[in-house]
């Protein structure tokens, strides 16, 4: 039945194999994140012209929009690995789901704060209870709920399964956040970047935005690898391979 799953994916779910795999990729992911970040921010802050309506304040877009996209993307990844963890009880899926939650919460927080700082000069208010802002705030509470529920259990694996269940219940919020600007009359502007169609934003501003999106994706991978490696050390602390790592690092 499981013949279609490639062997390398199967091997990857073994904790010491994933630890080595993530350890090899981690510096590359971080380097790519920093590189794309520098290029994207240079393009956005220095090269791109000022917006004819919003002046230079629109430059917050280069961190606000990628963070918003990440807040939803990470929840989707968390939801999928939570589903895998609940159905097949794979330890690594539990680790990926639980360690994605703090990163997702961080990006959601950044989205809300940078959005607020952008909204004040543009809309005249720090906050409004329109559909998109409210559903993004609910997303933050969902992340915090998953993190809190995970840490409330004595048995880590049981806590991971309970938190995974909560994550799956909450996944309904992600399409609500995404489509809120279409379904309701909101203060927040509608979508201007389309994957399958013509985007309403000029190329000078679009390419730094896409580069920053790439940068945040690489950053998520790097942060997830780092957190997952640490979590695996904690989960498997009685095993030999962890013992060898602890003794090996005593010299550093």
């Amino acid at each position, binding site marked *: 039945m499981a013949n279609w799953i490639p062997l390398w994916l199967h091997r990857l779910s073994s904790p010491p194999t994933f630890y080595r795999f993530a350890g090899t990729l981690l510096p590359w992911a971080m380097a790519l994140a920093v590189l794309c970040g520098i290029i994207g921010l240079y393009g956005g802050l220095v090269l791109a012209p000022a917006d004819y309506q919003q002046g230079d304040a629109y430059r917050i877009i280069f961190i606000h929009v990628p963070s918003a996209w990440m807040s939803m993307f990470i929840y989707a990844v968390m939801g999928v690995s939570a589903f895998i963890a609940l159905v097949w009880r794979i330890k690594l899926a539990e680790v990926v789901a639980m360690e994605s939650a703090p990163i997702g919460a961080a990006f959601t927080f950044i989205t809300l704060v940078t959005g607020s700082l952008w909204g004040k000069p543009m809309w005249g208010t720090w906050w409004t209870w329109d559909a998109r802002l409210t559903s993004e705030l609910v997303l933050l509470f969902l992340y915090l709920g998953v993190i809190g529920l995970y840490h409330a259990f004595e048995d880590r694996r049981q806590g991971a399964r309970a938190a995974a269940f909560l994550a799956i219940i909450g996944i309904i919020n992600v399409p609500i956040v995404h489509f809120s600007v279409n379904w309701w009359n909101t203060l927040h502007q509608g979508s201007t970047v389309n994957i399958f169609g013509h985007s309403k934003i000029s190329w000078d501003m679009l390419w730094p935005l896409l580069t920053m999106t790439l940068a945040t994706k690489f950053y998520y991978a790097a942060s997830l690898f780092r957190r997952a490696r640490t979590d695996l050390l*904690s989960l498997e602390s009685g095993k030999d391979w962890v013992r060898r790592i602890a003794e090996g690092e005593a010299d550093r």
Partner: protein
Amino acid sequence: MSTLQSFLAVSGEAASFFKMGGYATYVWPAYAVFFLVLIADTVAPRLRRRRLLGELRARLARQSVRHERDATSAPPSSTPPSA
């Protein structure tokens, strides 16, 4: 004279860059939040890892001391020494 002019031009550009068309009080704090939160997210697992490995090494040290003590002091008995 031209170097002074170009220096003034560059510093003028830098100043206007930092002013962000008057929106500096909004743009720069936003970027600061972005970097501070992500730096905190980068550092936290590193600290946790260091603490974890330190605790593990301490636990292994205690176990090996107990192992040596039980092996040298206790006479051979039917019950195995606890690990």
